[in-house]
């Protein structure tokens, strides 16, 4: 009896969450799809986005993400490897690094935006630019990415580590050929989480990559991200609702696409090296 009630309750929870998710997705799809077209993706916005398309915004978004990912992946992997392979248990510096990362992972993105504005835009003189925005996002996704990768590396079978060293292999070889490839699923999960957060980010980007909806010509140009565009259309532009929904739909499609790409590329890069069974 108790078993059945419990089962019913968890089933209800699942159904509820599923429905809410479907509702959100459904609303975006239903309201956005009529406005989504080929020209919407390839035209520049007209009249603050009420008409025209989102081409420059798509390009800016992609550029911001390229910056964020290409900075955070190598850095993050480096730190994760250091944390899981080169620190001793209870080492103070490592423990405080982990704590710092966990705190950083929980900081609201707008704080990253303020930091990015002060550091990248003003102190480093990068101004409102795609580069500033991308670097700010890199700072934001690094903590989660590092911790996910570290966990992944920690769950790698320890006997492989020992086995490799007992064969007189260097640590570098063990990490490069065995440990990192085995941790690929966790690395992908971290990357997907990070990209998801970065693509959906608004607050951190308003202060760093800016508002400009022109086609960016370089990474030093200001550029408006998709999420910023949605925010602007729905808050500041009357009559921009359908464009906002269409942009939101594009954003969702883009995130799904990125996730698949991330999975595919990591598999190609690392996963092909290992064979589970």
């Amino acid at each position, binding site marked *: 009896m108790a078993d059945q009630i419990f089962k019913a309750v968890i089933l209800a929870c699942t159904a509820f969450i599923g429905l809410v998710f479907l509702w959100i997705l459904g609303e975006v799809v239903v309201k956005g799809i009529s406005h989504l077209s080929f020209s919407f993706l390839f035209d520049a916005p007209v009249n603050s986005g009420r008409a025209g398309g989102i081409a420059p915004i798509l390009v800016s978004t992609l550029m911001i993400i390229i910056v964020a990912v290409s900075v955070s992946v190598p850095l993050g992997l480096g730190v994760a490897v250091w944390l899981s392979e080169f620190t*001793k*248990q209870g080492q103070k510096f490592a423990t405080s690094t982990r704590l710092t990362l966990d705190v950083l992972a929980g900081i609201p993105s707008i704080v990253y935006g303020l930091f990015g504005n002060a550091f990248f835009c003003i102190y480093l003189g990068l101004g409102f630019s795609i580069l500033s925005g991308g670097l700010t996002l890199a700072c934001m996704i690094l903590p989660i990415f590092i911790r996910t990768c570290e966990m992944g590396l920690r769950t790698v*079978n320890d*006997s*492989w580590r*020992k*086995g*490799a*060293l*007992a*064969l*007189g*292999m*260097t640590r570098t*070889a063990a990490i490069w*050929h*065995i440990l990192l*490839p*085995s941790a690929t699923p966790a690395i992908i999960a971290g990357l997907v989480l990070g990209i998801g957060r970065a693509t959906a980010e608004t607050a951190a980007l308003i202060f760093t990559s800016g508002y400009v909806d022109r086609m960016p010509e370089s990474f030093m140009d200001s550029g408006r991200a998709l999420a910023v565009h949605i925010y602007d259309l729905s808050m500041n532009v009357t009559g921009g609702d359908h464009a906002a929904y269409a942009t939101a739909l594009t954003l969702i499609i883009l995130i799904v696409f990125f996730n698949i790409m991330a999975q595919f590329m990591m598999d190609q890069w690392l996963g092909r*090296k*290992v*064979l*589970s*069974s």
Partner: protein
Amino acid sequence: MTQKQPPYKADKDNQDERAIPYTLGNLEAGEPCCIPKAHLQVQNLSVSYNNITVLDDVSLDIHKGCITALIGPSGCGKTSFLSALNKLTDLTASAEVKGSILFDTQNLVSDKIDVMALRRRIGMIFQQPNPFPLSIWRNLDLPLREHGFRNKSVRRKKIEKSLQDVGLWDEVKDRLQDSALALSGGQQQRLCIARALVLEPEILLMDEPCSALDPISSCVVEELILRLQGKYTVIIVTHNLAQARRIANYAAFFWMKERVGKLIEFGQCQHLFETPKDDLTAAYISGAKG
């Protein structure tokens, strides 16, 4: 099959007819050990973790080309002893090794040692077979590459020979690119032995290599270890006294005294089992203790 059976294995006769469904390769074994010649000289070796001593004051000679079995109950420092020999104790930050281990002219405890080169000369097999999550081929290829074998055909010859030596070649030659994790437990353990042998070590450390295997696989691995005698110096930790008796030339009996592992008795296997000098040894091998 030029390998001579060690002369003193009385209980071996009726085991020759054991049906083994595998064929082992023709390992080029040297002479069985007759003249004891120390390959490793261990003197006053102590191992401690977090300042808690687990192994205290062990001195013994490991003879070249012989199989030395380390027996004794769990937790008496046998594995720590093995790990000290190839400096795998370095992995544990809190581990401290004292005393001396002489290998050639080097003292493995105090001298500055190139551990990578050392571990190539002193291979290790673990209790749980630990093939890498790579193809069967790459499991052997990777260590060779890491030790600087650039020439592909040289590597191929070495790998093939090594797989033949452990009797795995016929079983895997058609699926060398398949995952090593798809092999059975016994095959995995033989692959690990092949992976150690491919680097042509002088000494092989084995930490209960059969205990995670089913009886038949265990039998095959045991047979294989017996064939290593002569060419390799083997140090094997085992909880299986019958196995120690069957394969070892020398045996060392470890026991916990006041929570510290000690070497109680060391000598020729036959002597240790038939005429033990120490009462503890006698009690342990008769099953009265342990």
